[in-house]
């Protein structure tokens, strides 16, 4: 089913002929989506056309045309993951690449205003010029600031000191599914970007939750996010020395180390204590497989794994970074850290203490540029599981449940043997919140492996349900495909409320019903 010529012309008159395409080659390129795909790399459904608006006004015009002609639309920023594509036939895709400006960095009040296609790294380098830094999600600094804050999740290991994307959000400009523009908070009366809540009830609570609407509730065209103090130089020089781009000069008052603990429980104790002592810039539980894959690849990695060295030294470990604003603060934080390590049996792992590793770790911590190595490089396919956020104890139980379950699938040979316990545990906001994602790598081109991986994911969802481990993040990639039907009934029928919101805000059902919720009544398993 292709787009009606008149409708195509209407879209073309909005964005210009250069910025719309229904050419098969263009559409086919968008259909390449390995992440979240349950088989191979190709999406089943193609958008009818791709549109590239350059402004809010163009987005509004597109939305209105879609409402008039009952065409589903979906917006994406960088487009990493199958969830970016419309999940229904006959839809148009808005690629927001041309909306890529950093509109403002308010140094005094520490926030930035961005358009959808600003990636974290772009914001960071500009913010650093003003002595500021931004939260970067764990997936990498190649991701969109706005997408993470408004529409997706928001977890990143700097969350210890720089929060969570969804909670760092201030004012938002939101093109509703109907094409009306809603500006949240102080922005509503153009009083500034500094607050996204009010007047009265906060519509931030409608636009997203623990997860965002994934493009299923309109288009976010601008947003403001908190920035944080940066105690480093305004520009970071990197060495041009293979194999990595690493900092030329070490940062002052910065120390990153991998700390190893005798047990998971002791690691948890240390995490609690570090959190509430309000020290630290970054914390992330890293596992032997994850760290190994950061360091090397191919045969070197296999040999390293088979030697068991990493598993021995880093079985229960986390990467913890102190980055202080003064020498006094640095000394204090190190003192507190030392005390906590003593109390919990933690020790700096020799892996992190070489000069080379210190350089590499510092760069990776600040730049978050190498996550692909530990996720996609080895087997090609990657996904994530568990992932509900609450406490450190929950995070530990997520590790135990996930690792235990993965062992079954590793034994079957359908997923990569990464030790089972290959997970990222993060703390946020000085330890007030924590969570774990249990990672899984598999060959997405091998039917048996892909099938096995998805069986693992489905079973992990079930464990979340049965063991009360919170709703799973895996739902991210399975959005709309029955997940509300499973979790809705056991979570106070939240899906019924989402449906009501959908009906009010999207009466013509023009936003991808597989992304947020479909207006049809709950699917039964």
């Amino acid at each position, binding site marked *: 089913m292709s787009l009606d010529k008149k409708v195509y012309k209407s879209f073309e008159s909005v964005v210009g002929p250069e910025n719309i395409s229904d050419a098969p*080659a263009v559409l086919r390129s968008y259909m390449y989506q390995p992440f979240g795909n349950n088989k191979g790399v190709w999406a089943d459904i193609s958008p009818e056309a791709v549109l590239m608006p350059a402004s809010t006004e163009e987005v509004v015009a597109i939305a209105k045309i879609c409402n008039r002609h009952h065409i589903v639309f979906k917006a994406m920023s960088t487009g990493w*993951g199958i969830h970016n594509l419309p999940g229904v036939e006959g839809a148009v895709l808005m690629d927001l690449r041309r909306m890529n400006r950093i509109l403002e960095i308010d140094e005094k009040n520490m926030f930035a205003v961005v358009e959808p296609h600003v990636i974290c790294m772009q914001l960071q380098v*500009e913010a650093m010029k003003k002595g500021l830094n931004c939260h970067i999600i764990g997936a990498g600094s190649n991701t969109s600031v706005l997408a993470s804050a408004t529409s997706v999740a928001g977890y990143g290991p700097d969350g210890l000191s720089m929060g969570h994307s969804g909670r760092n959000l201030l004012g938002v400009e939101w093109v509703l599914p109907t094409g009306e523009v809603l500006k949240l908070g102080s922005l509503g009366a153009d009083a500034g970007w500094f607050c996204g809540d009010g007047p009265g009830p906060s519509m931030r609570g409608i636009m997203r939750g623990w997860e965002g609407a994934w493009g299923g509730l309109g288009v976010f065209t601008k947003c403001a996010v908190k920035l944080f103090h940066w105690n480093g130089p305004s520009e970071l020089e990197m060495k041009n020395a293979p194999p990595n781009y690493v900092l030329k000069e070490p940062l002052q008052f910065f120390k990153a180390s991998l700390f190893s603990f005798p047990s998971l429980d002791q690691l948890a104790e240390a995490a609690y204590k570090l959190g509430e002592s309000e020290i630290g810039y970054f914390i992330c539980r890293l596992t032997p497989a994850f760290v190994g894959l950061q360091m090397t690849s191919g045969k070197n990695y296999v040999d390293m794994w088979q030697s068991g060295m990493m598993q021995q030294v880093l079985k229960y470990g986390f990467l913890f970074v102190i980055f202080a604003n003064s020498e006094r603060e640095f000394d204090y934080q190190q003192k507190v850290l030392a005390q906590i390590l003593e109390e919990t049996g933690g020790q700096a792992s020799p892996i992190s203490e070489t000069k080379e590793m210190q350089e590499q770790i510092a760069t990776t911590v600040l730049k978050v540029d190498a996550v*692909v190595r530990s996720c996609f490089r080895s087997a090609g396919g990657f996904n994530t599981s568990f992932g509900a956020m609450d406490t450190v104890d929950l995070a530990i139980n997520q590790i135990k449940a996930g690792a235990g379950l993965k062992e079954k699938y590793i034994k079957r040979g359908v997923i*990569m043997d990464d030790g089972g316990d290959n997970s990222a545990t993060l703390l946020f906001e000085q330890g007030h919140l924590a969570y774990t994602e249990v990672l899984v790598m*598999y060959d997405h081109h091998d039917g048996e492996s892909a099938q096995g991986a998805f069986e693992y994911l489905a079973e992990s969802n079930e464990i979340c349900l049965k063991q009360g481990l919170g709703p799973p993040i895996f739902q991210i990639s399975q959005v709309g495909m029955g997940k509300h039907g499973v979790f809705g009934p056991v979570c106070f029928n939240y899906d019924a409320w989402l449906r009501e919101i959908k009906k009010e805000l999207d009466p013509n059902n023009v936003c991808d019903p597989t992304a947020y919720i479909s207006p049809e009544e709950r699917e039964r398993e």
Partner: protein
Amino acid sequence: MLLELNDYVGDMKRCARCSICKWPPLAVMKSWRFSQNCPSIARYNFYAYSGGGRMALGLALAEGKLDDVTDELLNIVYRCTACGACDSSCKYNSELEVLWSIYSTRAHLVSMGNFLPEHFMIIESLRKEDNTLMQPKADRAKWAEGLNIRDLSQGGQAEVIYHAGCLYCYDPDLSSIARDAVTLLKQAGIDLGIMGSNEACCGSMAFQLGFQGEFIKFAESNIDDWNAAGAKRVVTSCACGFGIMKAVYPLLGKEMKFEVLHITQILDELIKEGKLQLSKSIPTRVTYHDPCNLGRNSEEYVPWKGVEKKVLGQFILREPEKVVHRGWEGVYEPPRDIIRRVPGIELVEMERIREYSWCCGAGSGVKLSMDDFALWTASERIKEAESVAAEAIVTACPWCERNFKDAIAQSGDHLMVYDVVELVKQAL
């Protein structure tokens, strides 16, 4: 054949869709303004125009998922200078051969008779006149008249053969640079010869456009000629020529009895040995533009042939290991060392340099077939040079120079364009 699309299916289907191919390596990004690395997607915006997008299309072709080869597809495939920036960025976290997937896609299309008419004209020119510029072969050596350089077209030998390259031979604006080059080499006492009117194109454009048959013909012929001329070293001023000779010529399986050098490498050597002395001051603030084919694309390419084995469950282990070049070993320091030795000169770096340099816009036949795109790309680079308050942009490739000069003429900017060779000549 060197380029077989099916050889790259393994890589094309393992792109993670992370978009890192669109940016310089993230850790070296310095500003929003100059944060992109791919001229193609920067200009045309649709995902298909990125490295990842082209890999997706290559895969789609290989798997029969694209019914027709449309003009749109060809535009996507060819609106790309094959600069390799995507390849270099991707390889920071992977072993995927993005650039060679792009080449193979082109070769695949050409083998099915699909190419742009402008490209056909380039190939016809090669076939008829041994150059890409539709200029008479007989005039190839005119640039060297009066220089008293040994012409090996009639026979004879030389230790060092200078290969000017098509553009230096035929572009009257740029020929002086070739003249300067050989003059300097002679002055330094080098036993030098040129192939005269027998000099033929290096074949790089043919290769990049997917006409591998043509490329192989030219490459093999050149190797034979240079071997026969007893060359120990072949020196070229053209970065594109240098790049293809280093990266791809060795794959032909022919013995190359000579070392391939770029003019900047040999000049750097001569200056450091004291055989050329730079004493005249050139008080100018300059920036250096790394040509793609002198830099990241000049490492010897090692095609992988092996088996994929699964270990640790689903870990894909290649045997033998892939040898992957990330562009780190390109020629970056010699031109800079030369510039730094010119008295009075101040060298400042742009943001995108070395293996993550922004393409000038001319490569892979784009200058000849899509000049608007070439000029747009060049204008971005010129703005970058101006952003570091450079008075001049110095480079080491005629295509870069041609394109920069044209872009500056169009915009009325005041940036000067120099080749490294010109600076050396002026500073002697």
